[in-house]
């Protein structure tokens, strides 16, 4: 998020800082402290914190003395040192675990591990929220916040309006996705689902169906838009439901299109988990999520649900 924010800052400075942009910047910083991250950093329209925020009328001249520069330089050095110390500690811990930790044992039937549990604000804040409004392709709005019962609520309004840009034909989407897993010094690492074979979610929905996305940690650019999808059907109503989806059921798709040539999901290379609402029905949606977990089910022997035989090579992917 800091990266995105800084990018936006750069853009504004390129444009020249007038009153309007400064106001936007204020709003931007407020949002960073607010409910949840926005993927692209576009301002929320219905944020109560920012309702009374008006663009400042007069701009103070920027006066920056040598003393200030020295001060900020010192602060930067100090921050970096603190960060370095923290990360070195983390690195040592990781290496220790790698070298001296117990080797991974074979999973036993019923073993599980919580991937995400949405019982605190920090867990909610780390997830990345986006909708087509953020990329100027629609009017859907989405929110992800902590409920009174200490669960995450993914809610919002899906707009049925199609932006008249001459390209878009289908209505919009709202999505929320997990952060990337990071190691020390913010190195991005894939999630490892290895001993487990099922994804378990405890959710309470509204009868609509959602899309579960598993991002692929891919190196080459042709694979960047590859994702594994499966549907999350909800019952609706006041009762909680525990959804168990075998990882073998996830199918390969590229830019939202299901692929002819299917490949088995690599359990060691999942970059993120996401939930999409894009069923095309305009209106509000509401999905309460308690946790996302991994489970080992001994009785599930299937490796991949879909056929892997060779189709006509001239027709595949055309």
């Amino acid at each position: 998020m800091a990266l995105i924010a800084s990018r936006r800052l750069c853009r504004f400075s390129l444009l020249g800082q007038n009153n309007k942009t400064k106001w936007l910047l204020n709003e931007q910083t407020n949002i960073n402290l607010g409910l949840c991250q926005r993927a692209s950093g576009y301002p929320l329209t219905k944020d109560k914190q920012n309702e009374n925020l008006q663009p400042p009328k007069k701009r103070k001249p920027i006066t920056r003395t040598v003393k200030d520069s020295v001060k900020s330089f010192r602060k930067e050095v100090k921050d970096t040192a603190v960060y370095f110390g923290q990360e070195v500690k983390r690195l040592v811990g990781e290496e220790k675990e790698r070298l001296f930790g117990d080797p991974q044992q074979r999973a036993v039937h019923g073993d599980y591990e919580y991937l995400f549990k949405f019982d605190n604000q920090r867990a909610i804040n780390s997830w990345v929220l986006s909708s087509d409004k953020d990329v100027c392709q629609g009017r859907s709005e989405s929110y992800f916040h902590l409920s009174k019962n200490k669960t995450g609520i993914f809610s919002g309004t899906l707009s049925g309006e199609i932006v008249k840009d001459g390209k878009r034909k289908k209505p919009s989407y709202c999505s929320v996705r997990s952060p990337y897993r990071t190691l020390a010094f913010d190195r991005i690492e894939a999630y490892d689902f290895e001993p487990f074979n099922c994804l378990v979610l405890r959710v309470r929905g509204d009868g609509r169906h959602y899309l579960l996305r598993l991002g692929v940690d891919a190196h080459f650019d042709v694979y960047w838009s590859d994702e594994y999808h499966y549907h999350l059907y909800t019952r609706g109503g006041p009762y909680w439901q525990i959804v168990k989806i075998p990882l073998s059921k996830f199918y390969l798709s590229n830019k939202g299109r299901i692929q002819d040539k299917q490949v088995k999901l690599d359990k060691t290379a999942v970059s993120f988990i996401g939930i999409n609402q894009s069923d095309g029905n305009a209106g509000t949606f509401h999905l309460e999520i308690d946790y996302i977990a991994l489970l080992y089910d001994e009785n599930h022997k299937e490796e991949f649900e879909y056929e892997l035989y060779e189709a006509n090579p001239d027709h595949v992917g055309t």
Partner: protein
Amino acid sequence: MEKLRKLCTYVLQRRSHILNKNKLLIGYHTSSVRLWRDKVAIKIEEKLAVQHQGVFNEILAKKKADKTAFQTAIAYYIAKEKLYRRGHVEFIEAALHQMKEFGVERDLSAYKALLRVFPEGKMIPKSVWQVELFHYPKQQSCAIELMDQMEYHGVCPDREFGCILESIFGAEVHAFRKFRRMLYWLPKFKNASPYPIPYTLPIDPIELAMLALKRMVIDNQNKLTVWKTLEAEEEPLEDTFIVSAMSPEQKELIEEHPETKPLIVEGGYKTWLRNISQIYFVLRADPKPENFTKPPNDTRYEDEEDLFEFTTIFEEEKPKSVSNALSIHEQPDGTVLGMCITGTSSKNSIVTWIRYLQQTNPKLEKIPIVFQMRTPESGLQVIETDQEQNVGKFIS
């Protein structure tokens, strides 16, 4: 010589005229003659598109927008363009846009009728090169768009659809590949949902409410009761219907409920059946936290447990001490005692529902009931259509 000069001046005139009018085309063609030809083609296309939109508007002016009207429009076009089928791509595109208005976007026969608008036999490629170079590109992409719309609305093509497509484009082209893809994937997910809804939803609001409640309840013994206020009593507060869902187990839970603790009616929750949303209300009791907290650790077994630090998903659900099995209606955030959907979703109708429940649950008369009509989770809802306006006012 004079003729040639005349032609040149004509062409130049045309050219300047076209350049002024349609500046986009400059980048694509250098030859003025080609420009002129394209201009004519574009004009004809525009005219046709307007005409085809007009066909539907004409039909709509005379008839009600339904399946027969849609088929009449297609028959009208085919009868008019008996020989050449001019502008069939534009016609199909116009029809695809209008399908939702006619209520046929989930109807396979409508798509078949629309596919039959393409001329047969003319566009079948004769060589491999023609196949790979996207023979008749405009027509094929139009057919692909048609099938994409089918896919979007969850309409699965059948054998007959494939036969029609084969007679138009042949079995090797891209459009047919799209059909094969759909035939492969769509049936896989057709019955994937564990909470299925009928393909065509009922129009009657009572039936819709029953369907939604049946989908939401998890108790197999659950019973649905339908009251129409006009039939149930002589002077009702409102003329509406109430569909209530309550199981014998929930009745028992109400009987066991202490009279000092109030019950809560929460409401304004939304539930969806494909594209139809309904608002339901819940009668619930406050949760019993003692049922959901872990029993204090028994020191005798502690060492054994911590040996390998194994935790399984089943362990957490089973408390170690002996206690009564929890009912499925008792959840960590409240005990669900009943649900209802009413015709108006107004406060009066909810009060009426509780009054009707008192007839079968006499204990309810003694227990105080709190009406919480705005829930902390849902908060204010954005109202988009006029239909929901009453409900929205009520909730807010």
